[in-house]
């Protein structure tokens, strides 16, 4: 079958702030949800500088969609349910001014994250970029580095 050629991506640009983020966009589960966890981190560029105009989306089947913009310091935060053992990760999609085509990555969370799957296929020295680091009290740290040293592992679903 001949496939239709896809519509090319274009950058989200700098001026999405009044259009895409919405109230409660970081709440995949409501406050007080039993067992809820907090996942947060910073988005940084190839110089290690904060990316203050990134937009992140999170999709957890059965839980919900999250959408948050980074702050002036590049920080973001979402509240969600712990991912299931069968899929011990939080899918992340990164948009930003300067980024012509969004990037997918995953925040692996919890003890099941150590087992096999994608993590085993990633070179050991880069694996830690996919693992959300527990900080206690149900809080996990997941930084996204777009380029350079400790560059985050990004994913391709088109192959």
């Amino acid at each position, binding site marked *: 079958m001949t496939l239709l050629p896809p519509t090319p991506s*274009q950058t989200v640009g700098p001026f999405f702030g009044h259009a895409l983020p919405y109230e409660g966009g970081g709440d995949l589960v409501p406050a007080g949800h039993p067992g809820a966890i907090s996942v947060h981190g910073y988005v940084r560029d190839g110089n290690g500088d904060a990316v203050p105009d990134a937009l992140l989306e999170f999709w957890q089947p059965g839980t919900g969609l999250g959408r948050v913009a980074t702050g002036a310091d590049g920080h973001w935060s979402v509240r969600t349910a712990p991912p299931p053992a069968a899929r011990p990760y939080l899918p992340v999609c990164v948009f930003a001014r300067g980024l012509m085509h969004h990037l997918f990555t995953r925040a692996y969370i919890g003890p099941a994250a150590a087992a096999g799957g994608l993590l085993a296929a990633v070179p050991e020295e880069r694996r830690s970029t996919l693992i959300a680091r527990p900080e206690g009290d149900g809080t996990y740290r997941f930084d996204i580095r777009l380029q350079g040293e400790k560059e985050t592992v990004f994913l391709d679903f088109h192959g």
Partner: protein
Amino acid sequence: MTGPVAGWGIPSQERITAEIAAAHGSAVKPEHHPRRDFAPYRSSVLRHPHRAPVPVGDPDAAERTAPVLGTRDVRAGDADLTRQHPGEPLGERITVTGRVLDRAGRPVRGQLVEVWQANAAGRYAHERDRHPAPLDPNFTGVGRCRTDDEGRYAFTTIRPGAYPWRNHVNAWRPAHIHFSVFGTAFAQRLVTQMYFPGDPLFPYDPILQAVTDPAARARLVAAYDHALSRPEWSLGYRWDIVLDGPAATLPGPEETS
């Protein structure tokens, strides 16, 4: 002369145009998507990964399912950007419509389509837009709708203006409408920009030109469709959107709460 002058670290249009030509000349095969590493667009320099993305073949990947937004989040009237304020916005009233399809040509049904754009003077209703063009109190420039059973979306709005930016001296973005589209899989997610046919700014714009294949660039340009124009009311444009990436391998998209 009110703007910056080339030579103090701010490149000229000639320099950017030459860089675009060199990048296009080095493209060995047509590529559907823009290059993330496209230096003529200066903001991309520190914001593209150096490493190739890692392929994920897992058929059970969470990214092969998708949320369905919209039942709760889209209100009647959200698709008409000219009726969000007490008065009518200034500018040329247009309708933009088309279908959202996957690469097999199947319609993407009941999914959220979001748009945002500058006003007719080329100014965004965004606090960080400093372009000295007037804001329009009757235009926010944000809309949303859900696709119908044929994958069709439709917006009524005004034609946005071109606007200056600081990528290089005398840099102007061609008029465009930003689109955000969900498919049947999260991996089909698309954010892009729709342009208007015949815009003389196309060759100067490193964002459009980051798509190095002319045929792919043409897919970002809407067609004027006289049959869509309404007498003494609005001009019509047609633009279909084809989502890349794997369709859902699991039953239909999940409804979010």
